């Protein structure tokens, strides 16, 4: 299927799904458009298997936000409080300088490298091939002589260890 056809199918599915969840037709169109924008901004890929579930939940969240905003709007009008919408914290400025950010990133990377080195050998090899050689699980399984499910377990374990070290 062409990318346009994939997008068209997903759009249709999303519209049906959101309408069933109680969205008004005009809003649903906008929510779906915004969902695709949010999806691409977050760096997700339409060709990836997680695309469909992610788009659905992103659209669902946007629909909820919209409902919340609408009820806020109704309240605002009834209170006649013109400033209510502008009062909230819009952007939270980062206090770290770009140089600090780079230092933090270097430290994080060094810690991540240490975690990867400390993984059991097969788990480490599977993760390295997955992350840095972009091999498929099938190729990794063949290379290491294990099952595809085992490769998935190795990759999940590596990701869990990395997360654990980040959270201290």
């Amino acid at each position: 299927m062409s990318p346009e056809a994939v997008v068209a199918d997903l759009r249709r599915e999303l519209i049906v799904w959101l309408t069933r969840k109680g969205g008004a037709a005009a809003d649903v169109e906008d929510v779906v458009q915004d969902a695709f924008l949010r999806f691409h901004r977050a760096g997700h890929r339409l060709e990836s298997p997680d695309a469909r579930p992610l788009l659905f939940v992103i659209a669902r969240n946007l629909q909820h936000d919209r409902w919340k905003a609408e009820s806020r709007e109704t309240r605002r009008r009834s209170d006649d409080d013109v400033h209510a919408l502008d009062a909230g914290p819009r952007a939270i400025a980062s206090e770290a300088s770009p140089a600090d950010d780079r230092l933090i990133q270097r430290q994080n990377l060094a810690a991540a490298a240490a975690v990867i080195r400390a993984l059991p050998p097969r788990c480490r090899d599977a993760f390295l091939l997955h992350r840095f050689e972009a091999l498929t699980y099938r190729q990794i399984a063949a290379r290491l002589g294990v099952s595809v499910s085992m490769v998935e377990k190795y990759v999940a374990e590596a990701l869990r260890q990395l997360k654990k070290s980040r959270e201290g």
Partner: protein
Amino acid sequence: MIDRLTALFDRRPRTAEDWLARMSRPDVDARDQDGFLAWLEADPDHLARYEAARADSLALEPLRAMFAADLARLGQRPARTGAGLARPRSRALAAGGLAAAALAVAVTLAWPMLRSPGELYRSSPTQIRDVVLADGSRVTLDADSAIRVDLSDDVRRVGLERGAAYFEVAHDAAVPFQVALADQRVIVTGTRFVTALTDTGGEVFLLEGRVSVSARDAGDPDALAGAVRLLPGQRLRLTADGPGRPEQVDVETPTAWRKRRLVFRDAPLSEVVAAAGRYADRPLVVADARLARTRVTAVLPLTGQGTLVERMDRLLPISVETTTDGRTLIRAE
């Protein structure tokens, strides 16, 4: 104990990291996708956690060089350190080549049309290409299109295998010219027309002369029995149910690509971007709800000064943003 039993029977991922690993499997099926959606919906934090896990994994990129030795040991090429250094092909790369060859064979078997006789002409994804056939007929291939041409003594046969093609057929009443697409055949003697494959079948636009659309080959004496005839200025849609009825439409606008330009009359900007995206050298991503609401009338040249995106930026009410991974996000101005 209960936990261990659950772990044995319930192999459904539980954490963002588990799901990230699951979603990279080669065989992610609808059940996995539904399970993933259920997990995402179960807790408002789950989406953020999944995206954080994904971003953290992507952030490891600078470590590639540090693990170059390990990767080399694992039979892969080392990290790209210097530019243009020739390296001997490793065994792993040769294996990759074999896998690619196997894939090509599978595709050919799945699509027998590719094995049909004749000469294949194709255009690359961003290029519109002119071809002159041996009988003097001229063909313009739209970007990412392919035709197979088999000029025999009784019938000049062309198959549209991908995309769209414009034909100016050299007149020869004795040897009919036919274009096969979507199970139908467009049979002509001398004329100008466009055929295109679409998601639902195909389309024929007649610009000049006369064509008949038939399910039978032009070599069949009854080829024109039950055929649908088109007049200039008409479009015929082909679907799985066969040809529809010819409709009088503006045939110049949707076929303007043959003159290296795209023409839009009161079209939504989203449609303009989607159409132009077929000719851009990198993915154009429509990233704004307002694009669908803004309508434009414009002629967009597909060739000329600068890149296509630069020309679009000049001509259309859009703003263009390039992401770090090379995609072009397009928003309303």
